[in-house]
């Protein structure tokens, strides 16, 4: 399926977005995209919908998870001094282990997302781009 086409020019875009929009000229003056793809068609394509929902389905819940986990840690540090001060490994306290656990979960989320993006997002991006007649990023 080929959904690329000649771009429509939004009159406001023409005025305001010189320098940022796809119709923008490079410093040399020649257009950057020889043929501006039709964003309306891309936006309503099922492939794009898949990409958008894959991204949002991952990042929104994950943001909720890491923010609540971080806030739990902060609230414990702010209000539960004795619990955080309990010594578990020699002099190492619960608070230190929870802090280190924040580091561990941050790394875990980072690499999970990295993997997810490589497997589920990047190929979909390239699919949408190919259908729009634009090469891979």
């Amino acid at each position, binding site marked *: 399926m080929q959904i690329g086409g000649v771009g*429509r020019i*939004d009159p*406001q*875009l023409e*005025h*305001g*977005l010189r*320098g*940022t*929009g*796809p119709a923008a000229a*490079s*410093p040399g003056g020649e257009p*950057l*995209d020889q043929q*501006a*793809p039709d*964003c*309306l068609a*891309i*936006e309503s394509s099922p492939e*794009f919908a898949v*990409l*958008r929902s894959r991204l949002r389905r991952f*990042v929104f819940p*994950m*943001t909720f998870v*890491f923010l609540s986990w*971080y*806030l739990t840690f*902060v609230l414990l*540090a*702010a209000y539960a*001094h004795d619990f*955080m*001060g309990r*010594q578990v490994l*020699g*002099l*190492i*306290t619960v*608070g*230190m282990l929870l*802090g*280190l656990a*924040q*580091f561990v979960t*941050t*790394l875990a*989320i*980072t690499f999970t*997302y*990295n993997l997810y*993006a490589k497997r589920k997002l990047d190929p979909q*991006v390239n699919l*949408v*781009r190919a259908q*729009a007649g*634009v090469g891979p*990023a």
Partner: protein
Amino acid sequence: MNVVLAADAIGNPIANIAVFAVFAVGTLALVYRVSRGGTSTADYYAADSSFTGAQNGIALSGDFLSAASFLGIAGSIAVHGYDGFVYSVGWVVAWLVGLLLIGELLRNTGRFTMGDVIAYRMRQRPVRAAAAVSTLVISFFYMLAQMAGAGGLVALLLNITDRAGQSLVIAVVGLIMISYVLVGGMKGTTWVQIVKAALLLLCVTTITVFLLGAFGFNFSSILEKAVANNPLGDAILKPGTQYGRNELDFVSLALALVLGICSLPHVLIRFYTVPNAVQARRSVVWAICTMVVFYLCTLVIGYGASALVGSPAILQAPSGENSAAPLLALAIGGPVLLGVVSAVAFATILAVVAGLTLAASASFAHDVYANIIKGGRTDPRVEVRVARITAVVVGALAILGGILANGQNVAFLVALALALAASANLSTILYALFWKRFNTAGALWSLYGGLGSCLLLIAFSPVVSGAPTSIFPMVDFHVFPLNNPGIVSIPLSFICGFVGTMFGRRNERPYAQKEMEVRSLTGIGANLRR
């Protein structure tokens, strides 16, 4: 281990200056080499988007391994113990905001500034003006913090105690920084960050490994010695020593930290230095790994300084808490290691301020001059010239501000800049990227609402008046009880953005909205590099 403390400075000031001079000359030469006198806007603002994810990731972490976080957090852990560590956790977790929500989409959508993204589907002039105001205000506060910190550092490392001498050094630091920006633009600034971050990481890991080795790789025995050498005793192992009296304030600070870091203007423009979204993602992954290593080391270094140097000796040194890491370096590596640590600390201030100056000048030249004044029709060479002039002006202001703010509480200034960034920028960027209906009115409300409420709350907080540590301790007009306004102003800016949008026009520019959505997710239309 015995620590020999010089009467008023640490180590040999001449050696410290020498190492610093070598670094300054070396990096200037590097900056000169990498910049080929490029006159294009893409080169000056975004280094032609030619960095790899790994390079930009190291540079990103370099933006955050500032003197405040390196010397400040190590010192805070050495003196107050656990509370300093809790603070450092926020610096790491915050990167997930950049990874999941901002980095890739921002890279695809914008070219040079935050304004590019926020104003993409809005009315250009008002929104770009608001974005520029926010960028300039936040950069200024953050820069002030860095420059004010330079004064204290100078006192510590170069044994310059009179204000005139310190002012002179701040001015020299500022001039070197301006020349980085003028000569190298984004490319030069990024390389300075990379060199600095690599040196800093090398330093802290060396110190950490040595420390752990000295204690038989048993962290618990470092803690044991730290407890013995700290008058607070085993209170340093649990929360409450530093932020104990005002719990809500601490929560507010933590919130500003985790939401503010990836909304800082000089971090946002870093994402434009890589060619595409995949590299933007890779840079955050690199930055997160680097930060985790760094703050793990800082934890060891902080408690290690308490163990080997002792917190009373640290507090007696010229710049108090901030001297923990340098004193520890002296204790374990002698004057050479101290010289290196000092030079790196200096370099850190230099590089971070250079990045901020670049962000501020890009915002003024690109958003205000090129898009508001000239309506988007400028000669790129003129635009770059405007950016360079702005950089000189901003740099001069930073020098002046740094001299005036010398001696102010650096941690407060940093926290303030973060609260401002989290309040004004984060809500607006997220709405612009993810909410279809968001419009010009909403953007203006959330930017000005967040910025204004944050500034107002600070003005009426104990930071400004009514407490012994205030800027004006003599008068008392504080009505807001918290030092950090984040917990109020961040949610408020989200509400403002929502309400403003509801009052504003529906379907303002439907095509631009769709186009932005496609571009942000796929990068179609974002290919600057042919």
